[in-house]
């Protein structure tokens, strides 16, 4: 059985891409501004090279392949996981209009539904969490978090 190591290259790829961008962004700066980044970035590139070489060697010896499956496993949780990320993106994107309380209530409703919650708890949990968030962030701590229709109604 070959070891699936494709996913092991994602963090090095992200790090390498970022290091390249970093080097470009500091090219014209004074030495004080770039010395630390150059040292760290150079070591990082060397470490990534070692990791790539290590994986390439494993693949060449046919002990591993570049399968990405560990990243998605188990498959039945994949839908929930992607759903959670999309709901979070939607929550952040609509927060300015919906405000904290309504936005959180709707996002939690959707998230719990995706996770498989049904019945009374599906209604009670989002309501309770949204209420607690309103009391803590808006009433108690006077946070500047965006206010929506509910906050305006209650203020």
């Amino acid at each position: 059985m070959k070891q699936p190591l494709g996913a092991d290259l994602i963090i090095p790829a992200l790090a390498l891409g970022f290091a390249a961008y970093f080097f470009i962004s500091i090219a014209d700066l004074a030495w004080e501004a770039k010395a630390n980044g150059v040292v760290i970035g150079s070591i990082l590139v060397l470490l990534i090279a070692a990791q790539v070489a290590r994986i390439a060697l494993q693949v060449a010896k046919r002990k591993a392949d570049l399968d990405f499956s560990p990243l998605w496993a188990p498959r039945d949780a994949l839908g929930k996981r992607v759903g959670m990320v999309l709901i979070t993106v939607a929550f952040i994107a609509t927060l300015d209009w919906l405000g904290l309380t309504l936005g959180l209530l709707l996002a939690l409703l959707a998230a719990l539904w995706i996770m498989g919650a049904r019945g009374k708890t599906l209604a009670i949990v989002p309501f309770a969490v949204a209420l607690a968030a309103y009391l803590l962030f808006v009433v108690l701590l006077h946070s500047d978090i965006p206010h929506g229709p509910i906050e305006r109604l209650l203020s």
Partner: protein
Amino acid sequence: MTWEFLLEQFGVQFGLWWVILPAILLGIIVGILPGFSPQNTLIMLLPLTLAVPVEQAMAFMIALYCANHLAGGIPAILVRIPGSGGAAATTLDGYPMTQKGQAQQALVLCFTASVFGGLITTLATIALLPWLSQIGLYLRSVEMVVVMLFGLTLIAVIAGKDTLKALIAGFFGLLIGVIGTDHIYNTPRATFGFLELYDGVPLVPALIGLFAISEALVMIEEKMIVDEAGRERALSARWADTVEGLRMSLQKWWHIVWTAFVGLLIGITPGAGASIASFVAYQQSRLWSKTPELYGKGIPEGVIAPESANNGVTSGTLVPTLALGVPGGSTAAVMMIVLQYHGMVMGPRLFATNPGVAYGVFVSMAVAYIFMIFTILPLARYMSRVVLIPTTYLAPIIILVTIVAAFGERQYLFDMGLALVFGVIGYIAHKTNYHVTAILIGILLGPLFEQYLVRALRISQGDLTVLFSSTIGNVLWGLLVLSLVLPLWRNYAHRKNQTVA
């Protein structure tokens, strides 16, 4: 300072129980939530603290600050989400204890280490204040470079089986930590064009993303965060488990003491803080342990060391604030504002002109810790039941509530998006065994390391030998080398013994 004066101060502070208890409660609530740092909470409550007499204001702020430091360990232990940077190291052994069904014991270890670590260092500060206030003057940029390196060596320590992966994660974090304007010319570096990144990568969204969101995304795979045995243990949680946690703490009393002093010494240094202290204490705890191989698998010392150091910092931070007028951290700076508003002049004269306020601050801290042990210890039994909540509910609540908390520190919507980005990076790191803690250590210590290094090199006009120019610095270099060599030598000796046997 006489015994009569001290006793009188203790009497005054115990009389302020009606201020201290609500502050402890509020401190615990905001401490549990990643994103709500004590300084933010105190800034929001400034209208209150500026309006009341200075003794009451200080008692309130101190109690909230200490409770906040203690509470950060609670979510770190129960759901692997540190409430603050200072509790990030607690996840390394706290969460494995929870997974083994020892959540209640881990919480008791966290509470006792926090309270007694904080209490011992506070009493030591009261006794040694004139001398301690001088330490900050001897720890300059050269020495701080080495202190930062102590923290960074933890990247190698937590590596486990795959050092290369941990190093990649750590250096990736260090490079992320360099994002933002440089310390000399304020020129932006790798900010992707976002003004919000000019001050560097904010810690709270990184912490929330790497730990809370990524953990919740992984959590979805299972119905519960603990296995069947752990669930049964949590269901049958008894007071006896709290007593067992207390017994474990008593057995490790010396560990609490020395790691608390690590926190105190780091706390005295302006700019250094609980995050550095807890990582250094964890690293040192593992280094001197007879069973270093058990660290990361749920060992009590792995909870005690960061929590004790984290709370040892609290009194240390206030030493330069009061004795020198240099705030030891952002929370101390807020306290300084309140003291100055009330007409107090910081510096050595404060102890002569207003000893009641100057020493009262530390006495207030000691009293807050005493109150805390009685208020929070009984709650361990009930808090540990969080592990019984199915992930169907826990994961969405964690993701969405912590995303909201990411807004708290700087009040930018951008930070919520940033937390999600770090959440996805953290998830990939989790699934492919790149340590998220190593990434966080890099993000945390990277900017500080650069700040001290560049400052030292500027003073020496680029001459690297400045790093070996001070006696204290050289002693610290020696200890650092010892920290790195000792585990290698011990491994060698262990292997040799096994071969002989």
